[in-house]
């Protein structure tokens, strides 16, 4: 069994502060600043290591993995509808959340890889950014198929493409790629690479605070959501690890694909669903995503996805 990363203990601290009703508060401006930093840093890191590849070579593989990611919400939807007895709108919106990804879970995955001295393909970041599109579009189609009223597709697409998350990650990739090409990574890495883990620590502290406040919202559908919030990412993660191995990714890369498929969004997806499926109840999807799946993934899921990647890599070899 692999050791738990010290950084995730900050999430526990945040949850504890919430549970103990500590007066600890992370200023809103700090939370937003940390998330801007993390998104740029994730992109930058990926961009720098992408500069080592021939982009055109990897593009087809990357795109296939993005397209296949649409399978995640398509699988989640019937489960939520039939077993979970959710309305069409809610089931579609939750599917979109689980098809989409969590940049912080991705960051914890990268931290884990550093701990076990592994790396992953730099273009995983691009996959992460691109995966939002099929996930959110599929979720919206599921939520609104046959529904009255027009879907605001234009507004949704604008939101997805120019939303802070994708914009900053892709921006970071571009700058990182350019810096890697002209060999001027050096003074920028002192900030965007060296401080990555420390900033993640502070961010996880706040996530813990937020998660402890979110858990109590999902009382009614609690038992189902706990089961779904744990079993679904495990399945999606297994699928990702398998795909990664089949596509010939490195061990770290296969694990990170599992993390992408298994993680679910609590920032970009809520914002998009508010526009596309306003009749869905955000409390349920955020509660499940941030209150159950996120902590499960960072503590238990990530090490499991690593073992899964090992397993499938072994099978393929």
């Amino acid at each position: 069994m692999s050791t738990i990363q010290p950084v995730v203990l900050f999430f526990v601290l945040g949850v504890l502060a919430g549970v103990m009703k500590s007066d600890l508060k992370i200023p809103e401006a700090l939370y937003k600043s940390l998330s801007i930093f993390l998104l740029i840093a994730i992109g930058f890191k990926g961009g720098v290591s992408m500069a080592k590849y021939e982009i055109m070579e990897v593009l087809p593989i990357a795109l296939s993995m993005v397209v296949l990611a649409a399978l995640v919400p398509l699988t989640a939807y019937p489960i939520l509808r039939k077993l979970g007895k959710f309305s069409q709108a809610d089931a579609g919106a939750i599917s979109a959340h689980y098809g989409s990804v969590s940049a912080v879970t991705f960051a914890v995955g990268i931290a884990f890889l550093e701990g076990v001295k592994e790396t992953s393909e730099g273009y995983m970041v691009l996959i992460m950014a691109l995966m939002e599109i099929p996930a959110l579009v599929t979720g919206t189609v599921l939520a609104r198929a046959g529904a009255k009223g027009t879907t605001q597709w234009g507004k949704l697409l604008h939101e997805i493409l120019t939303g802070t998350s994708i914009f900053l990650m892709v921006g970071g990739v571009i700058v990182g790629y350019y810096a890697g090409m002209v060999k001027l990574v050096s003074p920028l890495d002192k900030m965007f690479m060296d401080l990555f883990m420390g900033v993640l620590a502070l961010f996880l502290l706040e996530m813990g605070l937020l998660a402890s406040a979110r858990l109590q919202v999902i009382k009614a559908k609690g038992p189902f959501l706990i089961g779904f919030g744990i079993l679904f990412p495990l399945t999606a993660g297994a699928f990702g690890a398998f795909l990664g191995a089949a596509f010939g990714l490195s061990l770290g890369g296969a694990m990170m694909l599992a993390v992408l498929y298994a993680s679910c969004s609590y920032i970009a997806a809520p914002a998009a669903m508010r526009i596309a499926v306003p009749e869905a109840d955000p409390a349920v999807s955020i509660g499940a995503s941030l209150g159950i799946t996120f902590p499960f993934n960072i503590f238990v899921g990530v090490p499991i996805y690593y073992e899964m990647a090992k397993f499938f890599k072994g099978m393929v070899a």
Partner: protein
Amino acid sequence: MDSAIAMKRIEIVIDEEKLKELIGILNDLGVRGYTFIKSAGGLGSRGTRRPDDIFFEQNNAMLILACQESQAQKVATALRPKLKEFGGMCLVSDCYWIEGPPVSY
């Protein structure tokens, strides 16, 4: 009150993102003074709106406007159809403008 002019006080609450549009309408009506405060929260026909929710920033803005009755009438008439779209609320009450500051009503 001595040296005070009877006026109307209009108080509007709308979504913060609509504030710019509202101010545009007021400018077109020739309004010469108003005050606004952002980051307000509230409850209305569309449910609760919380300025400090990190996941859903749904801020209201409150705008206060002192003007003469005739102008208030004009503003109310012009705003009424727009308010259907904006939601929120619009209250009018009586007040006195204490003379002293430069006239901006």
